[in-house]
């Protein structure tokens, strides 16, 4: 009771967010002795853009006001960490936030303006394949994955776009399948759908990308678990996954190395187990409250700016900081599920579910990977890791989720009005 009463006097969470940014970026300002004002500029622009978008969402009643707040907190933690790792990177990440927020509103408005999204099933399939062809034709291999297009100095990771297309594909199939069932037999439609889904995931595997297809498979499996009533369909898919996984471990050298490093990173600590061992050292060095920002050595972890950023957070903000990140994702996913549950239309329901599950599984897979709970696969931690493509597509997906929640809110307001 006392707790609840004092909670009424707590300022709104958005001010907490501003406070974290002010403290963190002022701290970074004092870090190097010829004082440079760039951390302050980055911090202020971060606060300004977050506040602007948040008050736009609240002022114009653009739906759920929590998801953006939660994402902003995650982004702030990530941006502070990235700035601390490399100030150039922090500045770039702040610029990406600007583009990400444009993508957020683009996702919001474009998704709202056009009403044809559920009928574009074949377009999503064709676009995914076209994207694959373009990537194979003009792509460049960066960090072992052939899924980058370099265009006038910008490198775009096409698998991020393929991810969103896949979610639209799933949603559009489940909203259109009644029509397809009327024309073809149920078994044939389901089989064709499964084949296409595996084909789209397989195309990503051909680009030597493992993390994204894994996340997409988990999303796909969760969605068919929700929509398909027949247990046999689930069994077939589970069997396919187990077969593909076993084959991967047995025949793909790259995966076998990962498995070896996962089972015992200490056996070959200088080579195969180096990444995971450094990550575990970093998490261990942090303890409960961490070393403090700027006082740890997270730069020793390979790939710390993207895949291993969670270890860096654990090292400098402690296990409490890491748990806070997980809690924030949990709240985000909870809100996403709530939006999906309240949806009336199948298309929007599946899409909201898909986007939420994508955030959830991506977080689970990468955090599980860096703490050696799961096999390590190189994917980004949504909204935290450095990376333009990932940030922009995630913000666009968040914009779509925001739009779906806004539509519900308007629908509910109008029914409440009719009741009166």
């Amino acid at each position, binding site marked *: *009771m006392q707790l609840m009463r004092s909670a009424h006097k*707590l300022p709104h969470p958005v001010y*907490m967010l501003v*406070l974290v940014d002010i*403290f963190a970026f002022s701290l970074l300002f*004092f870090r190097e002795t010829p004082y440079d004002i760039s951390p302050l500029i980055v911090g202020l622009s971060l606060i300004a853009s977050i506040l602007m978008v948040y008050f736009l969402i609240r002022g114009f009643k653009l739906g759920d006001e929590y998801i953006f707040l939660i994402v902003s907190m995650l982004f702030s933690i990530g941006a502070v960490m990235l700035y601390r790792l490399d100030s150039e990177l922090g500045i770039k990440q702040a610029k990406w936030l600007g583009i990400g927020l444009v993508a957020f509103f683009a996702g919001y408005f474009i998704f709202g303006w056009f009403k044809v999204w559920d009928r574009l099933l074949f377009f999503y399939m064709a676009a995914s394949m076209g994207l694959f062809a373009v990537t194979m034709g003009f792509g460049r291999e960066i960090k072992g994955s052939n899924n980058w297009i370099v265009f006038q100095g910008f490198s775009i990771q096409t698998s991020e776009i393929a991810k969103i297309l896949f979610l639209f594909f799933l949603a559009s199939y489940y909203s259109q399948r009644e029509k397809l069932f009327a024309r073809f037999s149920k078994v044939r439609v389901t089989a064709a759908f499964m084949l296409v889904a595996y084909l789209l995931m397989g195309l990503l595997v051909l680009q030597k990308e493992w993390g994204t297809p894994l996340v997409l498979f988990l999303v796909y499996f969760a969605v068919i678990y929700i929509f398909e009533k027949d247990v046999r369909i689930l069994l077939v898919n589970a069997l396919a996954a187990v077969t593909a996984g076993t084959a991967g471990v047995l025949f793909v050298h790259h995966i076998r190395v990962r498995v070896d490093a996962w089972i015992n990173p200490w056996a070959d600590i200088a080579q195969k187990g180096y990444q995971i061992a450094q990550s575990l050292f970093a998490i261990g060095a942090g303890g409960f409250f961490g070393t*403090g920002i700027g006082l740890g050595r997270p730069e020793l972890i390979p790939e710390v700016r993207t895949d291993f950023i969670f270890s860096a957070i654990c090292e400098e903000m402690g296990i*409490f*900081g890491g748990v*806070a990140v997980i809690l924030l994702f949990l709240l985000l996913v909870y809100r996403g599920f709530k939006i999906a549950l309240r949806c009336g239309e199948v298309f929007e329901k599946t899409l909201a579910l898909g986007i939420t599950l994508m955030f959830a599984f991506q977080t689970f897979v990468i955090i599980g990977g860096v703490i050696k709970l799961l096999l390590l696969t190189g994917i980004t931690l949504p909204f935290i890791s450095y990376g333009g493509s990932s940030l922009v597509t995630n913000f666009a997906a968040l914009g779509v989720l925001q739009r779906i929640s806004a539509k519900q809110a308007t629908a509910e307001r109008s029914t409440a009005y009719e009741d009166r």
Partner: protein
Amino acid sequence: MFEIISSLLKYVFITIIYIFIFGIMRLIYLDIRSMSAKNFPKAVSLPYLKLVSLKDHFNFKVEESYLLTEDTTIGRSRGNSIHIEDPFLSGRHAILTKKGGSFYIQDVGSTNGTELNGTRLGTEPVLLKDGDRIHAGQLDFLYVSGERQGEGNAADEKRP
């Protein structure tokens, strides 16, 4: 100097981040509560028992409301129609009997007793009126007859 500030600020950061998380959770909680309070009375025209005590104080499962359709027993053991594992309830604590459209309440020799509007009940049945407060174990219920729904809402706002 930077070391000292940073190692002090880390506690501040963690605290603020958790206050943020707590604040978000609280807003979501209030949001859900206001929604369920809005929807409930409209749908129900049957008499029901509404929990008045704050649910989060209990470490056992208890519903926000119990619909009364027929004779109902309240108690800790599984055979009761309203079965709540409150250690202060007796195995069989009280019975609500339906006669005509109204309900009568009686205690069935419970250890800690049952109170109706602050007076302890005996084993003879007492007629329940809309807005009566029933106290059993650690729980406080409000009897809502279902015909006048305004009462239920007013009691909702009286909540501590």
